[in-house]
């Protein structure tokens, strides 16, 4: 604190502070991390808001995301084009939602997007199967996977269309006390 930095204008930093859960220092640190991912692509000077997007393949190589089975979905959910190319805004947004201070609702919205593999605004049985396979890889047999999916949908589906809409998902998450602490990445 106290160093004159030329990466962002003060106004930009204020805007970031108001719209995310990060402080100035953290945002500058995040910029450093973003720059590290693609040093040739990402400029050091963001005062005139350059339109730079880092591709998915580079972002999922971050140590925080590398071993996460949902890394592709996480990055895709925060990208504007849905393909996983993140601008710096999207990058900050992603870690802001995944930070400790984000409220449960916000996290639930993005968790829903992440688990919705086919992006149809529902978590249907296929989405659940994919989720389970990513969670457990080879641990469960296909019959068990099927059973778990059916049971899970049965438990959580309130309006009876055998898919989970966002309302069903949110209702279920509100009963999961661990959600806030597990849906959290430290950066």
């Amino acid at each position, binding site marked *: *604190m106290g160093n004159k930095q030329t990466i962002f204008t003060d106004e930009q930093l204020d805007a970031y502070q108001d*719209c995310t859960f990060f402080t100035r220092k953290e945002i500058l640190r995040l910029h450093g991390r973003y720059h590290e991912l693609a040093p040739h692509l990402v400029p050091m000077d963001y005062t005139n808001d350059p339109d730079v997007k880092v591709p998915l393949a580079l972002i999922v190589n971050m140590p925080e995301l590398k071993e996460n089975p949902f890394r592709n979905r996480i990055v895709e959910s925060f990208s504007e084009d849905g393909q996983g190319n993140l601008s710096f*805004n999207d990058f900050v*947004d992603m870690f802001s939602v995944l930070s400790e201070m984000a409220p449960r609702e916000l996290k639930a919205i993005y968790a829903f997007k992440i688990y919705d593999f086919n992006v149809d605004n529902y978590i249907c049985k296929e989405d659940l199967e994919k989720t389970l396979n990513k*969670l457990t890889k080879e*641990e469960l047999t296909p019959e068990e996977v099927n*059973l778990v999916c059916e049971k899970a949908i049965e438990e*959580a589906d309130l309006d009876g269309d055998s898919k989970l809409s966002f309302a069903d998902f949110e209702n279920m998450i509100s009963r999961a*006390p661990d959600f806030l602490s*597990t849906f959290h990445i430290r950066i």
Partner: protein
Amino acid sequence: MAGRVNFYSDLVTDIESPADEDGVHDSFTQLIEEQCHDLHDDFQPDFHDDFHDAIEMTSLDPEEESRDDIMHLEGPAYHRSDSEVPQQTDHLIGDRWSSDTLKVLSSMPSRTIGRSRGAIISQYYNRTMQLRRSRQSRPSIQHFPRSARPSIRGYRVETDGANFEEEEDNKRERLVNNLQNLSANDRVRMLRAMPLSLAEKKELRMLVLNKAEHSLSQSQIPCCSQLKYYIIIAVRHGWYGWMSFLSSLQLWQTALKCVGGRFGTGVLSYFIFLRTLLFFNVFLFLVTGLFLVVPQAVLTDPDQNTSVRSTWGLEVLTGAGYFSESLLYYGYYSNHTLQRKRSCYESMSPCGSGLSYNMPLFYFFTIGAVFFVTCIILVYSMSKSFGQSFCIDKSKGLLAIKVFSSWDFKVSKKSSVRLQRANIGTQLKELVAEVNRQELKSPVLQRLWRLFVHMLAWLMCLGSTVGCMLAVYYFSEHMHNKDVKIRSGSLSNTSSSDSLLLKEASLLAVPIVVSSINLLLPGFFNAVAWMEEYDSPSVLNYVSISRNLLLKASVLGVLCYHWLGRVASKPERLGLQCWESFVGQELYRFLVMDFIFMLLDTFFGEFLWRLFSQKALKRKRKPVFDIARNVLELIYGQTLAWLGVLFSPLLPVVQIIKLLFLFYMKKVSLMMNCQASGKPWRASQMTTIFITLLCFPSFLGAAVCVTYTMWTMKPSDGCGPFRGLRTMFQAGKRWVQQLAEVNPKLSWLVSAHTYLVENPFFLFLCAGIFLIVIYFHSQVVDGQRKIIELLQEQIENEGEDKKFLITRLQDIHERKRVVSPRRVRGASEVQNH
């Protein structure tokens, strides 16, 4: 946003919505396309890519009609026809749904929440409206918008559907307006919580700020309002600067990230708890240091006699000797009003000029304030933690919850990730087995046997606890008597350094015994629990925590009795000038011994055990970090620190040093010797339990002890700030009396003190009122629980309503189709050419 739906003529669904919703319909179209291609060869589905065109129900496109015959909502792989009971759901799923119905469904408000920008803006417009109203006055029921789908928050999207684009811009304007009218804090909170992309949020914010500035510069506000505005901006800048500074002080951020990445949230919670305790102690130290230690050190006391011993013995361990006449202990603090140096210390009367510092009063009030503030902080964090982690209805939905919230996103090490996968797989298998298994009643004999084993285990644990209590009681009595004998008996050997060293070492005997009990007995409890059979690992956790807690609480209870009942009541038996200093020294010794034994435990328990199990037993698995046991040790240490603050104001420093060392030691040992646990650990629940344990047995016990000491025990005559008084509590009363003497108008203060503070009846009354308030609140919570159940039912009913409407819609559509079959044939012939 719902479009205008007219079932009989055009079905215009306004789907000219932001890019997000294209995705919705794209996937729908894909789904439908698949089914067309799969199941229908007769007709050539000349499929329109854009569903956005208005498709009228009466136009009866042949492809549409033919598609209606075979369209299913679900993909071909998913069949619920083989489910047990033919219910409404099956009927619904197996139905043939027209494309129009699908479109209607897909643009229902509930399905677009959180998805389309328009819906989000709408939702947040409503919320800001609510917030503004609640800030101004209490909202009435009428303000809740009528929505087709009642929800718990009561402010979902409205169902009117005018032209959509216009609506969105309009809503945006109004949202910006609302945001501008909120207070800065509320605005920031709203902005942060919106699920829009960051670029859009920044845009909204810019609009709001521009508008604010615009309105400010344009309006004829008097200059003081503008000044207020600028002051507010400056304050906010200052606040952000302060928050940045605080967050840069974030202790051990990297270390915690490392631990979390490798071991997950469970082990991380231990380190976070350690950090929390560190902050408590830093707070204790700052307050006592500022108000007690610094004045005493800086200002002089006329009759201070310092007898410094020249030889150093085991001071660091025993806290006696050199330290006994130092700032560390109660005995050093003076009972006069301290004055500035060299200013009228010859005369005993207090001087008018210069800094005067009434030490007894400040001692009393500082300790009281410290306990009070710690109590408030603890209760607040406990209740916050409780609110977050304990949910009201836990019986349903375990499997779904496990699927969606069990993956710990913090874990980043490959081997830990693999372990986590295995864990989750096992837990899911168990849950499924449990859910599927018929309620098989285990044979009576087996249940009796299990009960018997449980009782036996409890008997063993309780027996060993009672045994240890008695051991500590008699051993401390023995040491006490020995000390008494030494004092009253031979005083001639005091010069011999050997016996002096031995005497000092004998002071350490009781602490060593207690610490070894604390070390060994939990291991014994673990072994006992091993032979028992538990239904679930969390029950096992609770049982072992409660046994451990019982042991520590009872040992501490015996020690408190020993100090307050034996030493403090008859200090002359031990020849003590200052029993408070002695008790302070005892606590210091206990704290130091606790630390040394924790070091030993880490060394032997983790390091050597790992070497042993890898080399000798040739096992690949490293030992697992026992979170519960370590946290209870921390709580025990903190209890000692709280007990000791009264007798030794600098004890928090010792605790701080100990915690700092402990953090690094445990972290190094963890990284070297341990591996992630194979058992599930519900981090947030356990954290709540630990904070509750910190508050209830630990802090409450310490506070009760300290209050008892201050209220009833006679302070020693020879030392300390309260010498000569009947109880420490009298310091406050004496000050009030002095005030009344100086200023006769304040005599009511004296009577208030006598009748309110000293009168037990008043305190009973206060306690009674608090209990009534608590009962009240618990009844309110019960009522809310009932409301939640009702609302759940309501949601299910709404679901049924929706299904009903959809099937009716479909029926009507079918009937219309049947009415005009000729048109179909005619049109299809035309099409086929």
